């Protein structure tokens, strides 16, 4: 609809972001004023945020809701949606409880109460459900966190995803590992792959394998496990130890990945590194406390907020000041999601949900997450510039180490998990 506004949008967005870091955005907001001639006169624009505020992922969900609110506040402080007469954004936050049905009924409620766009939800199952609600109501839905590829394989036209999908993470995880190894000059010919047997683990593994094979890297042994039932990983790690693998790649959730670390600690396989791909534990501060030796040296290729970006740092500081805990990457994604919606509203100059959807499609927002470029949605709604970054646990801190442009400090490779 309003393709000509692309350049404006970048400026406007920068303004909104700057507002957060304390700078006034008044100069650019004036520029936005004449962008939409036929301004609808609206005082408030409702955006629905769906997150697991309770349930087993509430820690993430609550941060995500809080960060989304900070994004809304930032936009409003910067003058709201100029193209709509400076209309203020209002965030309607709802609790999915991490359950698909609740997600659906809450999404329906939010839309009924006037939300022009939705964001969320963290759990892939819930997101799949909300995506169908969004589609049927023709309301745009921007997923912050939800890795499962299948959500966007339904031909939806109203759903978008900021974070890399599981298969993107598998591919990029492999690429990163290969470059990292090459960069370090170490010798890694064979890796073992251990993954949870659900679709998440399988997608990451399959794309990793394709990439690795192309580069001549042997992936063997390949071991899958049931993350809900497994209580001991010693046998699996013994299988790894009995092989010629030089490194171990792990895709799994928190509890099982911790079991892997415990088993690695006692079996002491001869490995140069343990390398998580989209791992649910190895970039978590809790893991440092729970794992043997603090998990020192563990890598994880995962989505992460860009520690090297000044705006991101400003957000992180503001968040910690306001909420008393370090911001999680999931929360930064929620922040980005609100910004994508806000920017689309600005360009659409309308609260018509289809117009907003069309504007989202054209976004060029520069995210606070590590990315290969501005947010760019392909025809399925996937952000093609979503990227992973390699993190490593070093002396109790989880730091970005690779690629170079995002590195806050040098990586250590080889990093044998047992000293």
């Amino acid at each position, binding site marked *: 609809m309003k393709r000509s506004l692309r350049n404006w949008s970048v400026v406007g967005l920068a303004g909104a972001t700057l507002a957060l870091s304390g700078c006034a955005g008044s100069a650019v907001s004036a520029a936005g004023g004449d962008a939409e001639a036929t301004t609808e006169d609206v005082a408030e624009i409702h955006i629905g945020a769906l997150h697991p*505020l*309770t*349930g087993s992922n*509430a820690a993430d969900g*609550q941060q995500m809701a809080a960060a989304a609110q900070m994004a809304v506040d930032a936009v409003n402080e910067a003058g709201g949606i100029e193209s709509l007469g400076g209309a203020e954004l209002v965030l309607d936050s709802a*609790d999915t*409880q991490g359950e*698909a*049905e*609740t997600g*659906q*009924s*809450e999404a*329906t*409620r939010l*839309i*009924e*109460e006037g939300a022009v766009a939705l964001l969320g939800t963290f759990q*892939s*199952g819930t997101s*799949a*459900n909300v*995506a*169908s*609600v969004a*589609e*049927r*109501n*023709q309301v745009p839905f921007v997923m912050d966190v939800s890795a*499962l590829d*299948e*959500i966007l394989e*339904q*031909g*939806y036209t109203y759903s978008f995803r900021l974070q890399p999908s599981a298969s993107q993470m598998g591919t990029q995880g492999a690429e990163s590992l290969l470059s990292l190894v090459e960069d370090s000059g170490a010798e890694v010919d064979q890796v073992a792959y251990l993954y949870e*047997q*659900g*679709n*998440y683990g*399988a997608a990451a593994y399959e794309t990793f394998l394709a990439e690795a094979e192309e580069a001549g890297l042997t992936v063997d042994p390949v071991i899958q496990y*049931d993350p809900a039932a497994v209580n001991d990983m010693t046998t699996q790690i013994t299988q790894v130890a009995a092989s010629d693998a030089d490194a171990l790649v792990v895709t799994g959730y928190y509890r099982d990945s911790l079991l892997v670390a415990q088993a690695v600690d006692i079996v002491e396989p001869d490995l140069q590194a343990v390398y998580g791909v989209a791992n649910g534990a190895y970039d978590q501060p809790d893991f440092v406390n729970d794992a043997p030796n603090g998990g020192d040296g563990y890598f994880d290729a995962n989505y992460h907020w860009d520690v090297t970006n000044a705006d991101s740092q400003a957000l992180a500081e503001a968040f910690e000041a306001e909420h008393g805990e370090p911001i999680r990457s999931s929360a930064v994604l929620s922040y980005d999601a609100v910004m994508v919606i806000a920017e689309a509203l600005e360009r659409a100059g309308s609260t018509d949900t289809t117009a907003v959807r069309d504007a989202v499609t054209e976004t060029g927002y520069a995210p606070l997450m590590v990315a290969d470029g501005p947010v760019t949605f392909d025809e399925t709604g996937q952000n093609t510039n979503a990227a992973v970054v390699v993190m490593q646990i070093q002396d109790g801190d989880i730091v970005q180490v690779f690629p170079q442009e995002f590195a806050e400090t040098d990586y250590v490779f080889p990093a044998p998990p047992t000293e």
Partner: protein
Amino acid sequence: MTTTATPRTSTSAGGGLTGRLTTDTGSQRSRGDYVVLAVFVAVAAAVPFVLSASDMAIANRVLIFAIMGVGWNIMAGFGGMFSFGHAAYFGIGAYATAYGVVVLGLSPWLGMLLGIAISVAAGVGISYLALRYKLTGAYYTMSTFAFAEALRLFVIGNDALNRTVGFTIPVQQGSSLVDFQFPAGSPWYYWIGLGLLGMCLLASILFVRSRPGRFTIAARDDDVAAAALGIDVLRHKLFAVAVSAAITAVAGTYYVQYYMFVDPEIAFGAAASNDAIITAVVGGTGTIWGPIVGAIIMAPLSDVVTGFLRTPPPGFEWLAGHGGLDIILYAVILVAVVILLPKGVYGTLVSRRRKS
């Protein structure tokens, strides 16, 4: 089958709830049941004109609970086989529909028939084994539980069934009765669900009045006496299982078409079994209308609590942001009803009225 009376377990498979039931055995008062059914459906059909769209989501959930409760009740309430794994039939219904629609391109209605067929076959098969090998009491209960669990694990390991991801029903724009799809918030989901519930209730009433149904109830009351009067207890119990499995599978189909999504945990998890049992138990096991009462009480709990916590009244602010309150409430109601009103809410009302 021993004739020795035993103190704690009934001789019927699964023990049954014999002795703690009020049964509408049919002949005396169920002409009235048809009237009540007609009035119930007519009144309930007006609900979409009263409730808001988001409250309709709760109403639809009530329908799902009710259908599951009615289904479970046939087997456990009237048949005396306390199933602890009705998730199996719910899940089969859901998965058959989803697989039919997504992979085979079938109409959901055909998917429903497919689900019913597989569900009935599975139910009859596993129950035949359980009854044939005379599993009673705890062992019967365990076997039903294990069956649902085994199905869940089977699906998780099965590529053709999409493992842990399950299925998402493709969204179409516009309404289609044939494809069982309507715009979000359309009252048609509710009306169809109500129609299905009405048919399940009708099946339930017909079952209780039918020869097989009455023989099944007789066998529940005393299977040895029933056999001595020429009733093929095994065959009739399996018939009850078939009816029960079919109704529960319908709930699965409706779930999938309404939520447009299913995964192994939703379909075969213990929560689904619990919902079926608790709906019927809270309402009143072995009665036609108990599961409806139970569903109206239990299904909205989670939404009511969520709504309550969204704007907590003074003194309850600390609860905001904490999960679990709804399930605690659910558990407390369950335990309280089981101990204080063993016949369930509806069952107790009925027996009070009868006495007075």
